[in-house]
């Protein structure tokens, strides 16, 4: 049975659901296809940090724009999305790291993002659980945290309200010139098909330079007030930026429940879901350097997920050069939660034939399809 849609989105993670949301504001007939659970892929392993990143001008533009979109959505989000303006505190462990902080501050400020430099004493005051003697930090008060799963469901629910349909439990076998075929032979047709399948995107669009990059997370029991900001060591940028085989970086988030979410690790081991105890140990040892007392907190769960990673660290958002009906929205690495809504908006802009509020070129075929 062939059915016609304006757009079909393959992948019901936060990126796919954001695409559904923004597309459903412009088009009536939208279909989201998800073979597993809504948000059950990388979204379920996301920290939920909505952060402005200055790793590159293109990354800054996308994260900044997306954060503004999130801010406009926050008043409407359901309470279970647990949106909170915690701000980010980038922590400089030594003078070398601290020497980069002022440059970061200036970049943010010149791009209308509030940021303030904190001395070592200030850092100790605002985050008493950090090891004394940090060189200082950069506080970005406009950053926030959300609970990725419920935010994803909220985005999809809004799309449903606008008439979007959702098909769950069937895998897509192929996308070809506006025709989507499922594993059971069912086909659907659409003017646009969005490949939002994250780490699985290359199965449907061969040649996409996306690899799974495994990460671990630990969550603790409830310790309200132990951490206030999303804490990230300045070395995090190195860990995310370099494409080394494996790396860890200290990353701690206070959840609305009072639990601490602890990360982060990166490794290329294909799709092996087993907990890598050795890397978890490295991650914990790194965290202990920043928060010596955190060792006594009770860890109740460890889990792993796979970030969809591209060689140039930017997501692929744009038209396929080979298929006029195919739009790609995948490869968001560790910024999927943050940049999901901007991705959705850009995809809707492309489908509507209108320019976007930011330059789309860095994320399109010219940028990301070329291997770095």
């Amino acid at each position, binding site marked *: 049975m062939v059915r016609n849609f304006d757009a079909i989105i393959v992948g019901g993670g936060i990126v796919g659901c954001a695409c559904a949301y923004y597309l459903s504001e412009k088009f009536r007939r939208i279909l989201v296809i998800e073979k597993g659970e809504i948000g059950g892929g990388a979204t379920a392993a996301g920290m939920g940090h909505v952060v402005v990143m200055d790793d590159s001008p293109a990354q800054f533009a996308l994260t900044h724009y997306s954060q503004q979109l999130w801010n406009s959505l926050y008043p409407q989000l359901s309470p279970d999305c647990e949106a909170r303006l915690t701000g980010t505190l980038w922590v400089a462990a030594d003078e070398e790291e601290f020497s980069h902080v002022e440059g970061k501050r200036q970049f943010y400020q010149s791009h209308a993002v509030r940021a303030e430099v904190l001395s070592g004493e200030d850092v100790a005051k605002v985050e008493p659980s950090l090891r004394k003697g940090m060189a200082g930090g950069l506080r970005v008060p406009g950053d926030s945290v959300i609970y990725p799963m419920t935010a994803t469901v909220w985005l999809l629910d809004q799309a449903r309200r606008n008439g979007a349909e959702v098909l769950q439990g069937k895998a897509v076998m192929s996308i070809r010139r506006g025709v989507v075929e499922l594993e059971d032979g069912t086909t659907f047709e659409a003017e646009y098909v969005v490949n939002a399948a994250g780490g699985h995107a290359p199965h449907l669009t061969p040649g996409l330079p996306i690899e799974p990059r495994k990460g671990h997370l630990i969550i603790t029991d409830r*310790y309200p007030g132990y951490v206030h900001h999303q804490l990230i060591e300045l070395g995090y940028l190195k860990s995310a930026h370099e494409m080394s085989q494996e790396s860890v970086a200290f990353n701690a988030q206070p959840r609305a429940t009072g639990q601490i979410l602890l990360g982060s690790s990166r490794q290329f081991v294909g799709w092996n879901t087993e907990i890598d105890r050795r890397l978890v140990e490295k991650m914990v040892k790194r965290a202990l350097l920043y928060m010596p007392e955190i060792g006594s907190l009770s860890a109740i769960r460890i889990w792993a997920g796979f970030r969809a990673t591209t060689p140039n660290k930017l997501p692929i958002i744009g038209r396929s050069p080979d298929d006029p009906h195919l739009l790609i929205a995948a490869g968001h690495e560790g910024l999927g939660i943050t940049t999901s809504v901007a991705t959705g908006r850009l995809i809707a802009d492309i489908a509507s034939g209108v320019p976007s509020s930011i330059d789309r070129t860095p994320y399109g075929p010219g940028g990301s399809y070329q291997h770095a």
Partner: protein
Amino acid sequence: MPDKITVKIDDTTIVVLAGTSVAAAILNSGRAKARRSVIGEARGPLCGMGICYECRASVDGVVHVRSCMVPCADGMVIETDA
């Protein structure tokens, strides 16, 4: 014969037989509540064997201790609802 020992539960000091679990001592002191749940409900022990985590209390300053698995010690300071 088991010895009698003294423990402090919140603002009450009570005498219990040595070997009494902290959970039992909390209940014997007249309190039913060991902790508050996420939405603020009072909770007490359910399984009695250390797997439900409903009996958690603070023992000598350490939070989230399963009170049913810990025998009282003389001078122990126990806080419910911590």
